[in-house]
């Protein structure tokens, strides 16, 4: 029970948990969100391009990624990336890929599927008059997307994109299956070393909960602020 609760193990491991663990988690979240958004937007544009084949390929990719558990995808890329690297660089044997690079590639590819659905909804929510007006002004396809459609789609979907990023932040904890010291992995390492599972897991839960709560509160405020402008 709480009588034997050891606060000191938390205090002692704070630098390790936050400098190593949380830095890894937050860097992974930020880079994966950015990469996922870029790839996701490209996939969404492919799906809406009007070229049948391109749209089909993009659609298959999204459906494929969305029907697999993230844990399985993490394993897939962990074993596959060295071989892909060998194939690209022409090295004689599978190349060594670090834990961070491997999980970053995994999360970018996985999240791209989810971000693309959000961006697709955002692009489709823009009235037909906008791209029509852009062509009337003489903008080509790339310019229309770059200056007219995508900025509005991005802005309309910003709350949803941020919510998905919070989900991503929580999902990065799954790199635990590769024994990578992200925040949860670091907490778990200390927990097993010192035999203090209760303290470390409760503390990890509180930290994740606090960050996610604050972030989703911020998203809700943002949403209510930009929702009026229509």
């Amino acid at each position: 029970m709480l009588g034997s609760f050891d606060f000191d193990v938390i205090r002692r491991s704070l630098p390790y948990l936050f400098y190593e663990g949380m830095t890894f988690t937050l860097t992974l979240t930020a880079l994966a969100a950015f990469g996922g958004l870029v790839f996701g937007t490209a996939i969404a544009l492919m799906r809406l391009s009007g070229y049948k084949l391109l749209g089909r390929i993009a659609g298959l990719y999204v459906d494929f990624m969305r029907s697999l558990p993230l844990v399985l995808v993490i394993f897939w890329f962990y074993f596959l990336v060295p071989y892909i690297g060998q194939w690209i660089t022409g090295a004689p044997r599978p190349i060594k890929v670090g834990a961070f690079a491997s999980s970053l590639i995994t999360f970018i590819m996985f999240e791209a599927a989810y971000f693309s659905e959000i961006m697709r909804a955002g692009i489709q929510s823009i009235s037909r008059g906008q791209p029509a007006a852009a062509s009337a002004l003489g903008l080509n396809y790339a310019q229309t997307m770059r200056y007219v459609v995508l900025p509005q789609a991005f802005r309309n979907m910003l709350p949803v994109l941020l919510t998905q990023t919070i989900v991503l932040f929580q999902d990065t904890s799954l790199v635990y299956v590769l024994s990578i010291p992200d925040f949860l992995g670091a907490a778990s390492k200390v927990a097993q070393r010192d035999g203090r599972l209760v303290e470390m897991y409760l503390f990890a839960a509180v930290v994740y909960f606090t960050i996610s709560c604050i972030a989703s509160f911020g998203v809700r405020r943002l949403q209510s602020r930009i929702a009026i402008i229509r």
Partner: protein
Amino acid sequence: MNYNWNWKIFFEPNPMGTGTYLDMLLSGLALTIKTALLAWVIALAVGSIVGVLRTLPSRGAYWFGFCWVEFFRNMPLLVQLFLWFFVLPEMLPRAAGLWLKQLPNAPFWTAAIGVGLFMSARVAVQLQAGIGSLPRGQRMAATALGLTTVQGYRYVLLPMAFRIILPPLTSEFLNTIKNTAVAITIGLIELTGQARSMQEFSFQVFEAFTAATILYLLTNAIVVTAMRFLERYVAIPGYITGK
């Protein structure tokens, strides 16, 4: 790629003595489905109650529902499973904790309940939105007919709301199936877990993961097809999704 492909590996006996490697993966699939179904029952039951609480006029009920949803939505599923599996038995009185630790199949029950409660928050939000999307007149008409609050929900609001939210519930069910894979971390050897052990025993990593991927895709396709039929059957005439 200098990788030794061996697709016949599936028909070779596995080192556990439980038949071939294919049998191993199929038993993993069975466990995935069993866990997901139990989790889904829990998610639907608890999620419905919490979802209704969030639409009641009582402030207390609303706050309870709000806290429930925030609690289960703001923690990674993995952390929640760890809390149920490692922390809960230590927090209980000694005897209860010991009983919990010695429970046979502990990973299975923890995974089913943990994933179920995690998904219940999502079901609750969907149901709240479903009830909220009904015209105000429905609730008023129920009251005008002399139905009590319980009767109003039972006969008027819930049958409509569930029919409206069936499509999003389908994808939540698919999420439940996928989320059971997280339980690999507490020692549940479901489909992903079996693929992983097959990889460790046979070193045929890509065959094992390909097979698991195909099994997940098949499960998905079956669920989606079945739910399409159900959706068409229960669709409300006059709504966009209706006939």
